[in-house]
């Protein structure tokens, strides 16, 4: 057994790439070792800003011997065939064995590959791994052709066993492997030799290098917490920042500094963002007031003045940064949100979908329409939507784009707007991901829905749908956002009508340069009709009728336009709804509802009412998992199979007219009675959306259906009895079909 230690020592590796690189190094090397027959006990990869390291323990000292036998041609075949075989196996004819085979005497080649020393194998593997390493971005330097993330300076490669250690010798673009490494850039730059991993790690520690990123992160976090605690404060958690900072230092030294009083008026988010983005500082909060009062920075070295100079420098930089932020804040407060919103007309949202102002107008109108459904005041929802994007024009958001929404909230508060409106400025972007918080304040919900529906319909209208892994406008996220807003707030509405309305708004905008005379009139008419009918086709027909009534001459162009809409919009709406359904499947799958259950419910009417859909699916999932449910499903499938075959054969549909008077047995009569009972319960339950009751009523069908199939032969001799029984099966299908499409459920 042997242990391998590899270190690739370079100039500073970007923090964000280190962890992945350590993993990749481990995987690539160990995979190649195993492929070459060298199995091992354990392996671990490490990264610091200046080194990638791999340790492999319990490695075979030599790959096992391999014996391979290959059957060749029969003795006596033409010389050419034999020569071909010899070339293939790399042997001469006197090295072949001749054995008796079924077809006579046959040549056999026995190739014995002796095992190779681990060092030889490693010396081949490592240069290849280095040359083909998957860095996100790599570079050349000097006169070389080798690519690495930053210039690679040295390679340490040592194989050690009980009887000592040896350098595994190889050369990569002029860099020769050795047993040397260096410590911290400033504290311990001297090179020293290494024999094994334990010694390497211990010596590095003495040379001011903590090899393990997790150890560095833990050290930083513990020191930061303790330092804050000693001042009666707490560090604001930030796992991403912690990982990044741990990747910027080999020897973390935590320092805590003050934030000047001048900046205590700034919103905490501004302080946090400025410190994190520009300086990579942690925020230190006073738990009593919630204010950010100090910062934590992490230096890469110890100094004789215990970090005083470093801290003073950092404080100075922070002062300059926060002075900028304060300047932006004060300038922004001098402007009204309406003035900011007005500037949005200069900003293109998307070159086909128009400016932000045009977008905001659509979102405002849609927010107003959605408001009543989510229990929001329509005026307030519209007002909130109108200023929801204003902060994009603030100096602060220009500087810190990630503060969009948050700044809107502050500026709305400062200008005395209702809290519900201010909150909507921030929360209408939510939820941003599957685990982000979903707003529940009605005004926020209305604007959040409108914002996302507008985005989705817009990109559908210009045919920029996500394809494969490409989703540059984050439309999948927007659709999931809509779904979560609806389901988690139990919002009841038919999404299609809002999609239609917004698609029309987009269409009117996209066709703005055509000669349609009364597009605004038409848009309003259409939207009003949609509101009345709730269905696009009917609404469009109504407007078309109105247009035609007014006289064909004047409105012929409008008619063409409307007919064009009739072609494009329902198709787009259906397509977008399917996209939503796909997202919904993913969402419900995570809640334990399997895809076939969802398909069975999607086949039912009103499938654009996601709340109804989810309720139905969840109830059905619960039911199908019960004993009754599982058996009933089998009964249904059997009934359906028999029916489908019979219907195909007879060319009729057995969907009506089973009569109890043709029943010959009690089991039949029992089934008639059970179906009648179920029908009585199911229809009103479905109407009341009481799916639990509907499922319970179906459960009552299980025993009668089982009994029926056990005792009764469907294909009776009497044609009347046969047809009656088939129609009885049809009745089962019809009754259960009120709940879901059971033909789509697997199992």
């Amino acid at each position, binding site marked *: 057994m042997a242990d391998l230690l590899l270190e690739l020592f370079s*100039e*500073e590796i*970007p*923090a*964000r790439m280190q962890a992945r690189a350590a993993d990749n190094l481990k995987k690539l090397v160990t995979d190649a070792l195993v492929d070459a027959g060298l199995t091992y006990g354990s392996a671990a990869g490490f990264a610091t*800003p200046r080194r990638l390291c791999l340790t492999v323990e319990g490695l075979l000292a030599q790959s096992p011997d391999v014996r391979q036998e290959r059957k060749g041609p029969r003795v006596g075949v033409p010389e050419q065939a034999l020569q071909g075989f010899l070339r293939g196996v790399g042997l001469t004819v006197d090295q072949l064995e001749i054995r008796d085979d079924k077809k006579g005497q046959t040549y056999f080649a026995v190739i014995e590959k002796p095992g190779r020393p681990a060092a030889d194998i490693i010396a081949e593997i490592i240069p290849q791994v280095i040359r083909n390493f998957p860095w996100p*971005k*790599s*570079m*050349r*330097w*000097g*006169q070389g052709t080798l690519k690495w*993330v*930053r*210039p690679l*300076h040295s390679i340490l490669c040592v194989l050690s066993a009980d009887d000592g250690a040896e350098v595994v010798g190889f050369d990569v673009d002029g860099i020769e492997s050795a047993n040397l490494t260096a410590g911290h850039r*400033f504290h311990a730059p001297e090179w020293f030799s290494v024999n094994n991993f334990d010694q390497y790690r211990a010596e590095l520690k003495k040379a001011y290098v903590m090899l393990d990123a997790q150890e560095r992160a833990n050290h930083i976090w513990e020191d930061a917490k303790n330092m804050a605690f000693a001042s009666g404060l707490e560090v604001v958690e930030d796992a991403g920042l912690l990982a990044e900072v741990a990747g*910027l*230092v080999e020897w973390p030294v935590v320092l805590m500094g003050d934030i000047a009083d001048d900046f205590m008026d700034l919103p905490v988010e501004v302080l946090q963002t400025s410190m994190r983005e520009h*300086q990579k*500082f942690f925020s230190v909060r006073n738990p009593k007031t919630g204010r950010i009062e100090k910062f934590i*920075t992490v*230096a*890469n*070295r110890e*100094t*004789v*003045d215990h970090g005083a*100079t*470093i801290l*003073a*420098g*950092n404080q*100075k*930089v*922070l002062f*300059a940064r926060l*002075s900028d932020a304060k300047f932006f804040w004060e300038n922004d407060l001098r402007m009204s949100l309406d003035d900011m919103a007005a500037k949005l007309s200069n*900003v*293109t949202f998307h*070159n086909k979908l128009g400016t932000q102002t045009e977008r905001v107008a659509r979102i405002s109108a849609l927010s107003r329409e959605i408001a009543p459904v989510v229990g929001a005041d329509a005026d307030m929802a519209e007002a909130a939507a109108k200023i929801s994007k204003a902060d994009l024009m603030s100096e602060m958001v220009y500087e810190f784009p990630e503060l969009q929404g948050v700044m809107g909230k502050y500026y709305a508060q400062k200008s005395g707007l209702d809290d519900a409106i201010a909150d909507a400025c921030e929360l209408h972007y939510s939820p941003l991901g599957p685990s982000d918080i979903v707003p529940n304040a009605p005004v926020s919900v209305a604007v959040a829905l409108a914002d996302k529906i507008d985005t989705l319909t817009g990109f559908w209208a210009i045919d920029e749908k996500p394809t494969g892994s490409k989703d540059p406008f984050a439309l999948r996220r927007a659709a999931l956002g809509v779904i979560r807003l609806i389901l988690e707030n139990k919002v009841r509405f038919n999404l299609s009508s809002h999609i239609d309305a917004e698609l029309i708004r987009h269409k009117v905008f996209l066709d703005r340069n055509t000669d349609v005379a009364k597009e605004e009139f038409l848009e309003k008419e259409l939207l009003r009709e949609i509101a009345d009918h709730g269905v696009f086709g009917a609404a469009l027909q109504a407007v078309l009728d109105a247009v035609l009534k007014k006289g064909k001459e004047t409105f012929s162009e409008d008619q063409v336009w409307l007919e064009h809409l009739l072609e494009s919009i329902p198709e787009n709406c259906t397509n977008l709804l399917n996209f939503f359904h796909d997202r919904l499947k993913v969402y419900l799958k995570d809640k334990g509802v399997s895809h076939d259950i969802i398909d069975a419910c999607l086949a039912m009417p009103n499938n654009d009412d996601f709340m109804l859909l989810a309720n139905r699916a969840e109830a059905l999932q619960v039911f199908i998992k019960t004993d009754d449910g599982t058996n009933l499903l089998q009964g249904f499938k059997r009934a359906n199979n028999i029916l489908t075959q019979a219907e195909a054969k007879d060319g009729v549909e057995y969907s009506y007219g089973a009569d109890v008077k043709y029943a010959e047995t009690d089991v039949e009569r029992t089934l008639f009675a059970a179906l009648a009972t179920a029908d009585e319960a199911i229809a009103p339950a479905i109407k009341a959306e009481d799916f639990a009751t509907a499922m319970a009523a179906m459960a009552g069908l299980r025993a009668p259906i089982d009994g029926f199939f056990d005792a009764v032969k469907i294909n009776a001799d009497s044609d009347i009895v046969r047809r009656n029984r088939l129609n009885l099966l049809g009745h089962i299908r019809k009754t259960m079909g009120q709940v879901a499409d059971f033909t789509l459920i697997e199992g």
Partner: protein
Amino acid sequence: MATDKPRSFQEIILRLQNYWAEHGCAILQPYDMEVGAGTFHPATTLRSLGNKHWAAAYVQPSRRPTDGRYGENPNRLQHYYQYQVIIKPSPPDFQDLYLGSLQAIGIDMELHDIRFVEDDWESPTLGAWGLGWEVWCDGMEVSQFTYFQQVGGYDCHPVSGELTYGLERLAMYVLGVDHVMDMPFNAPDARIPLKYEDIFKQTEQEYSRWNFDVADTDILLQHFKDAEAECARILAAPHIDPKTGQKIIMVHPAYDQCIKASHLFNLLDARGVISVTERQAYIGRVRALAKLCADAFVLTDAGGAAA
């Protein structure tokens, strides 16, 4: 190595000049045209192309019209100085050389925290990119450190190592000055001590006003078109000069026009007459010129073309 503190802006510049001279760089003078950054100096842009070895260092006055603040902002100027070092091929000890230069200007490595933080450099107008870092001293960015990978669309081979120091910001830190205008330009005990404001306050005001409000945009637009046309015309000329009968490709005169176009674009941008969509188009036009110049330079002797 002297780590005693310099006392003035010019002393810091002089020390950098001496340091890089000692380490083998040709100390060049600033390019005599308005540029946005030291990288535009042909000693960097053009000389990073081709296979000839090269080492130069120089101060380059740089102009960023949109950054003008009438001399009021403690850190922002529309005219400032960059110190630029370019070495091809990049030496293996380039980082150590760089750290030595910080020491030379009085930054004590034992007391300060120097960090190399990922920062990839890209110049859309020059069609150039490289990988490297911004160098932090106690949390402040003091230099840009780049290994050029491509310039004018050409792979750099050998690779040039480039250093850019923002001189005012670095000097303010070393000298402990909070407002750029308060910084001693020459020694505080000189016969006539001059501060930065004595030299540049008035010009910052004048240029800020002109950049933002007065520059004639019609003239600037015309100049842009003229520079663009002239650049292309120069490079379209036959390589053999009919008068001398020699091969003379006029890369540098053409590149001057490219630099002009780039600066004119910056001025137009400061005047606020370039829309977001037009911006990309203008940048693309300057890049096309830079590309033409690069194409021509690699055909010349300095560009490494075989004679």
